């Protein structure tokens, strides 16, 4: 594949021209209650060997671009965790509906 044909996946943002001229918004807020809950859940599921960081990343990276940008940070995490728990048959689609 030549460089011209190479399109990085959306999470691969290093040097992306789309944000070249946008200042960094100095968001200092700690995670909200939702974020902290998702964060704690991820750590618990990892400690119980039900998912790994690499699986979390694969789940986030496979979110389609429009959704990737529309979702908040911990919403992307939660989306990935739901995908993984469904794939592994740990929870059912009905339960998450």
């Amino acid at each position, binding site marked *: 594949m030549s460089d011209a044909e190479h399109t990085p996946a959306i*999470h*691969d*943002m*290093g*040097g*992306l021209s*789309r*944000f*070249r001229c*946008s*200042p*960094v*918004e*100095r*968001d*200092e*807020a*700690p*995670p*909200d209650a*939702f*974020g*902290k*809950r*998702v*964060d*704690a*859940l991820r*750590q*618990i*599921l*990892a*400690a*119980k060997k*039900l998912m790994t*960081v*690499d699986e979390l*990343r694969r789940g*986030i*990276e496979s979110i389609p671009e429009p959704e990737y*940008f529309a*979702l*908040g*940070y*911990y*919403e992307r995490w*939660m989306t990935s*965790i*739901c995908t993984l*728990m469904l794939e592994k048959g*740990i*929870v*059912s689609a009905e*339960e*998450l*509906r």
Partner: protein
Amino acid sequence: MSAPARPESLARLEKLLAALKARGIVTEEELAEMQARTDRASPEIGARMVARAWLDPDWHRMMVANGTEAAERMGVSMAGAPPLGVLEDRPGLHHLVVCTLCSCYPRAVLGYPPGWYKSFEYRSRAVRDPRGVLAEWGTVLPEGTKIRVVDSTADYRWMVLPLRPAGTEGWSEDQLAAIVTRDALVGVALPQGPVAAAAE
């Protein structure tokens, strides 16, 4: 500012948790305990590691060689966490840490990553225009200073060991730790000595 999670996301999380609880996989107590443990990590740990490195050559050597061990010696449990690397600034060389792919951050010694570290702008621009990013923090490096931008990953986390500012000779560990901010540990800012502080 990052938008709050949407109501449907809040609802979906509770459905997921209910399903996991029904199978005995998680409990509300475990969630509360894990959150409390995560909340305890803060940049004060990283700042203390740096202050010690400025005062104690043996600690400095050990920390640069093995950040994970340095963190463990601070009482931080690194079990299950990726290795921690320490990037030592030198005259003429400055380090900046980013995770271009997501938000990998040495959480054990710095706490939750701030929102801006996870932002699309920081992730994309830190590698392309690091001096422009530093300028937004008001950080200007001495002329001729090279910048090494280091990508933190899921497998290896980085923190910066900045240069000790002039005018801090004779300072105690507490005094030194107080000027090592989280931003200095990421590399977007420099620790400010007394001269710079007075000039502000």
